[in-house]
């Protein structure tokens, strides 16, 4: 039923099988390191959110929840297309795989476009970029600034991961056209899928933590 066999059995199988297991284990372990990487940011965020809640509340209220929700939806869509792409790859449906890869890339790019082009740009114009042009009048200005430090850094690192993901998918697309994948060979697609979903999960947490604190205003 499952593609994974017990460790003792694996050695008796083809090279490819052992390799598949090794690379998915490698990928999961890599994702574990990514969790800890973002984990440092989440720890900092939680501490300051606790210390300076009113400022974080006020800062969050300055974000546009609608855009955030739209982006969440886009990213979830891209996760769906990615999952369908992996499925197509497993079944050896090359045309379908290519289609889904293209869709995923487009959705990912739209996300990054909205994030950087619309939101960041807007925040910049509103003088909300700490260290560059931050200017905020009102109580708790320091805490609001701190909120925006975390906002920009967390979404920035996330966007960077998106860009890396899109680049990987682009390579995969090219490889698909070159006929590199088939029902026997879809390992890279699967691994890229894991990565892509992981980046999605990070956003699933960023969205409420950054956008929704101040949504009740």
């Amino acid at each position, binding site marked *: 039923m499952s593609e994974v066999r017990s460790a003792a059995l694996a050695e008796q199988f083809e090279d490819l099988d052992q390799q598949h297991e090794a690379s998915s284990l490698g990928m999961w372990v890599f994702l574990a390191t990514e969790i800890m990487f973002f984990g440092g940011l989440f720890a900092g965020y939680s501490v300051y959110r606790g210390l300076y809640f*009113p400022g974080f509340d006020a800062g969050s209220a300055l974000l546009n929840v609608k855009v955030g929700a739209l982006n969440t939806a886009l990213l979830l869509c891209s996760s769906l297309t990615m999952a369908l792409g992996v499925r197509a790859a497993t079944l050896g449906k090359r045309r379908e795989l290519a289609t889904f890869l293209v869709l995923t890339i487009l959705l990912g790019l739209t996300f990054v476009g909205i994030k950087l082009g619309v939101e960041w740009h807007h925040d910049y114009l509103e003088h909300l970029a700490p260290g560059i042009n931050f200017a905020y009048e009102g*109580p*708790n200005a*320091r805490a609001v600034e701190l909120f925006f430090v975390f906002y920009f850094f967390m979404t920035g690192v996330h966007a960077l991961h998106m860009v890396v993901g899109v680049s990987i998918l682009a390579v995969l697309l090219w490889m698909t056209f070159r006929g590199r994948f088939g029902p026997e060979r879809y390992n890279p697609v699967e691994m890229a899928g894991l990565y892509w979903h992981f980046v999605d999960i990070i956003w699933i947490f960023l969205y409420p933590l950054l956008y929704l604190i101040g949504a009740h205003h």
Partner: protein
Amino acid sequence: MWFGFPLRPEQASTIAQGIDHLYYFLTAMDLFFTGIIFLTIFYFAIRYRRRKKDETPAQIEGSLPLEVAWTAIPLVLVVVTFVWSSSLFIRNARPPTAATEVFVIGKQWMWQLQHPEGVREIDELHVPLGRPIKLTMTSEDVIHDFFIPAFRVKKDVVPGQYSTLWFQATKPGSYHFFCGQYCGVSHALMRGEVIVMQPQDYERWLSGSKKAGTMADAGARLYEQYACITCHGTGKGPPFVNLYGSQVKLQDGSTVVADDAYLRESILVPSAKIVAGYEPIMPTFKGQLSEEQILQILAYIKSLGAAERKAGQE
């Protein structure tokens, strides 16, 4: 002392001896286990040295009773150590309420100390024998650390917050204090002397020193100079009497304890927490008052009486 060679610093505070006893216990434990390990290794290594080139000894898998024993014994020992050291630590952590407060400001690379009576010192601290002294410390730049080996006390001096340290000297004399936390180029020069004097000598020293009036007086002068009085003396702002350490009701319904940090914040960022029943009209004094002046105002506010429970000691 060991052949005239010091093995521990002077015991010059009430807590020093307790710490030293724990230290002796730990040393004994250390020597005991090190001794056992070294001796056993030597004994085995000689007794079971290889005699023939290709001999093969009988194999031993291990022994559960032994494993349990050498897990349990250290476990018991560390539990004892933990309880002992933690109770000492907790006892030493809280300054006695009667302690005389001395304010300390660390900056790259000097210590500025100020007695409540107004005497200021640089890199030198005169204290009376047998009276608890509490240092309220902050830093103007990086993290420093106030360390008096002879008293066995040490505490980081962190910018952005007040930290406290207390001691009660038991022996007259002059003892080093050091900056314990690396703080930049002249970290090693950021040291000075604590001079413990008989109380009467101390009083003489105090009255003989130049001083700008007590800290509270200085604070009172600032209170007028910066026009705090125009609001806080008129009812536009809350009065300061018995404010320190009291529970303050805020506009948003919560309460805070009026401790050092809260008062400091109220002066520098008045908008952060608004007292219930008042308008948020107080201007900020950020950039106008130095750390030292803030401490003086704090001393003034404290001199106007404090609530029963001291700040931060719920």
